């Protein structure tokens, strides 16, 4: 069970009040792409809000953190930390600080 923490606006959009949990088959390598694919499959209203519909590129003002590390610029197909895969640590989708 993988834990994902969404920013408040996306929690509202997904109609959840806390972190969400995603189950991925153990055989699937836990990459950011695999995790976001599963998240969007479970919460289709989030499609296009984290990644572009067509290019799958991260939206510019979003960041990905986990285990006190900024994973934003890691390749999307790089493996996520084991502590995320085990559910010990959440994967955080964070709205970048922008604006006044």
């Amino acid at each position, binding site marked *: 069970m993988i834990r994902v923490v969404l920013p408040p*606006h996306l929690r509202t959009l997904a109609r959840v009040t806390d972190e969400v949990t995603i189950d991925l088959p153990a055989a699937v390598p836990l990459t950011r792409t695999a995790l976001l694919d599963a998240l969007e499959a479970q919460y289709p*209203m989030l*499609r296009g*809000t984290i990644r572009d*519909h067509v290019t799958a590129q991260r939206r510019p003002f979003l960041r990905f953190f986990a285990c006190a590390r900024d994973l934003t610029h890691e390749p999307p197909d790089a493996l996520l930390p084991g502590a995320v895969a085990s559910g010990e640590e959440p994967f955080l989708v964070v709205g970048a600080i*922008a604006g006044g």
Partner: protein
Amino acid sequence: MSGVRVLVGTRKGAFILTADGKRRDWNVSGPHFAGWEIYHMKGSPADPARLYASQSSGWFGQVIQRSSDGGKTWETPGGGVTMVPGAGPKGESNMFVYDVSPKTGKPLTTHQWYDGTQHPWEFKRVWHLEPSLTDPDAVYAGVEDAGLFRSSDGGTTWQELAGLRGHGTGPQWQPGAGGMCLHTILIDPSNPKRLYIAISAAGAFRSDDAGRTWRPINRGLHSQYIPDPGAEVGHCVHRLALHPSRPNVLFMQKHWDVMRSDDGGDSWREISGNLPTDFGFVIDVHAHEPETIYVVPIKSDSEHYPPEGKLRVYRSQSGGNEWEALTKGLPQRDCYVNVLRDAMCVDMLDPCGVYFGTTGGQVYASADGGDSWAPIVHDLPAVLSVEVQSLP
């Protein structure tokens, strides 16, 4: 009719204002979609309970919301939660993908960028939603970068009407300061195949085959801010309006100049007359008097507030040229707000109600055709759009 429902889009959420036919006592609901920019909300003429809203954010992009109960509850069409991966809805209601050339597979066309080079179209947001006059599930979307999309499944999926961008003038279109947006969509009630749209900064366009093919309708416009002031395209049209009983008569608030066409846009003539300034954004037509029109003059393109700090709606009851200032109930000193292009509307009651919203967060209503005004609310976030539904 028993009442009205005013749909207000703001920089930080949506608000729904309701009143009975007297339009004196108002109930305010909101913010809906708190914290998001709501560029536009509009109800279906065919089913007043069906509403559409354009919700967007610099962080999270575009979201389309739909209500089937007059705004009490909302959903993202085709976007519900599913616990069976792969079997659920596709979440495509916010997927606006421009057509490519069927011959080359490359972008259909490019447009002019700020530095004069050609630039590919990039979707940014939905500026305007225009529901069909007859089908609650059919709705048009005007988007930035300027394009026209249509949904026939209640906003679940969208298809571009690419004949607009592809008819040949696209490379001459260019973004204005607010972006290159398709902000006005008018459907001819006597001929649903006839559509009018307007783009900043390209101009006005008409289709006579339900959006398949298009042509510019800008003859008679004169814009000093483009190299050829009388060019076929390139004009910064801010808003178009028509009266349902005379759909061939169009009114236009341009970047500068208030204009009128009596031939479906084939030709235009200026009707600015005695306005204190002919710059502005909104224009609308009285519900029962096709020759009565309203504008809100703004000082200039570099000073987006009313002249002399006096918020005045101007009304012409002669189809233009002769204008009177409507001031009763509006601030007549120290007022420096703007009224954006989608932020004025009229209801169908008698007397006709007129509404507009300001960047200062006020929504003003007149229940007597503009003779007198009162704020419904005065401390909302900056108002982007105002629409009204007249309820049975």
